[in-house]
């Protein structure tokens, strides 16, 4: 079953620059798609446009159709704000790159996680408290009660990203968009968070759109990849195809530099 159909997506800035040009892909329930590109390649803009959250002044055209179970068919590009608000969180939710800025600095962590639970599942009081605890435990946070009482600046970067993941999962989205979720983290923490995401997506049968500039990371978690350069999808295919037989020069460059890094590491450690 197709969850998301993107056809000929264009995003144009207020100055008339094309940020995303003619990007098309489909995403089935439980599928994992990686979106690779350097910064400025339009990958984050693609994600925002999919949620109908392109910044004011941007012109979005093309088709972005969600067909999430129980939510009906919605074309995000033409849908009204009310419809989109009810769709967000349940059809799709997002984990961002920098967890410190993605959490409200003045709100205790527990309250931030509670907010979507309260709104979407209508939980109150004790039930809500228990749900927050469960949500924090699900992302493998030790001592969830302490974390819930803390402000974002009082916990570590890895813990913050786990909280952000808990928030994104709170509404049980059909599609999780992860926008460079491990880039701001230490390498060891990166691996942990990646494993966690991998497991959670697996358990819940969620679809995943994983955005990164790091081919090695994407190839670990995604099944298919799309390579973006200057807003244009230059190559797409299964991870195996793209990594083993890159066709576009830019993809070759990406694969090549990833291999060189690997080679250098092996030479160092052998």
């Amino acid at each position, binding site marked *: 079953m197709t969850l998301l159909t993107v056809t000929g997506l264009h995003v144009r800035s207020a100055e008339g620059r094309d940020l995303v040009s003619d990007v098309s892909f489909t995403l089935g329930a439980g599928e994992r798609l990686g979106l690779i590109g350097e910064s400025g390649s339009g990958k984050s803009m693609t994600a925002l446009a999919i949620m109908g959250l392109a910044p004011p*002044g941007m012109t979005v055209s093309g088709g972005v159709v969600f067909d999430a179970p129980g939510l009906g068919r919605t074309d995000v590009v033409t849908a009204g704000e009310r419809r989109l608000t009810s769709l967000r969180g349940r059809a799709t939710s997002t984990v961002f790159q920098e967890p410190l800025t993605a959490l409200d600095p003045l709100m205790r962590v527990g309250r931030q996680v509670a907010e979507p639970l309260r709104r979407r599942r209508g939980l109150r009081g004790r039930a*809500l408290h228990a749900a927050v605890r469960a949500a924090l435990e699900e992302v493998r946070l030790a001592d969830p009660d302490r974390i819930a009482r803390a402000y974002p600046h009082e916990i570590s970067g890895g813990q913050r990203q786990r909280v952000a993941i808990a928030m994104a999962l709170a509404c049980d989205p059909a599609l999780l968009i992860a926008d460079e979720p491990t880039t701001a983290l230490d390498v060891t923490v990166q691996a942990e968070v990646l494993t966690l995401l991998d497991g959670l997506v697996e358990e819940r049968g969620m679809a995943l759109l994983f955005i990164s500039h790091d081919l090695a990371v994407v190839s670990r978690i995604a099944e298919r990849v799309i390579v973006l350069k200057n807003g244009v999808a230059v190559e797409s295919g299964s991870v195996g195809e793209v990594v083993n037989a890159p066709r576009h020069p830019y993809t070759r460059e990406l694969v090549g530099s990833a291999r060189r890094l690997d080679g250098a590491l092996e030479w160092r450690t052998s």
Partner: protein
Amino acid sequence: MSAGRRRVSRRVPRSATLIAGCVLAGLVLAVAVVSFFWLPYAPDDTTGGRLMPPGLPHLLGTDKLGRDLLTQLMIGARVALEAGAGAVLIGGLVGLAGGLAAGFATRWLDDTLSALLDILIAFPTVLLAMLVTAAREASLGSAIIAIGLAMSAIVARLTRVLVKRVLAQDFITASRTSGTSWPRVVVEHVLPNIWPTLSVNLALQFGLAVLAEASLSYLGLGAPPPNASWGRMLQEAQASVFIAPAGVIAPGVLLVVLVVGVNLIADGVRDVADPTRRRTR
């Protein structure tokens, strides 16, 4: 958790400036409260003899009409606090609404509002007060409206900038991606995040409003007699400052005490209102 915010924070820090400010402003507040229940003399009692020096039975002496200075001073405290609170209420609400509107507005509307605010800020408060007085009458209410309107422009401009800064943050987008509607975003994220800065500014504005009311009264644009205002007391005592200095010193000192107190509170509030600052203290 929803219960968590209602609960008093476990670590509300004790701020020395906040305590000092509360003591000073509290002193004036206490005087104002007492004035409602007890006054040494009736406000229009002129039997004390003119320009009596401090002593008994008139603790601070009398003014040029023979009225008891302490009585006038106590009523003046009431007027000063009313002016500050009224102006902050008007300026805060109007300014917050205008600032939020500008912060959320499209480019075109935002530019229009900003230009309007710039004009309003450049407009002299005294002139504004004269216009309001001409339209209504010379009263404390007119003075409060004029000061509040002048203040609202400053508050609106600050609010606009703060709102724009908060809206640009990732956590607003993050909250929107989980399906929070705009009104909820304002209540849950925007207002709490602009409040630490805004509350400090409002406290400072309170002090400025007290001074503005004193200036307007000094110019005869404030509360008419017999409602004593510190500003008018200063003006009336000015001619006799060398014969009866108490008439100038007393309201002057109280004015300073109140404004310094309020400013110290503003400083203290900044430390308490923002949890991210608590750690570094």
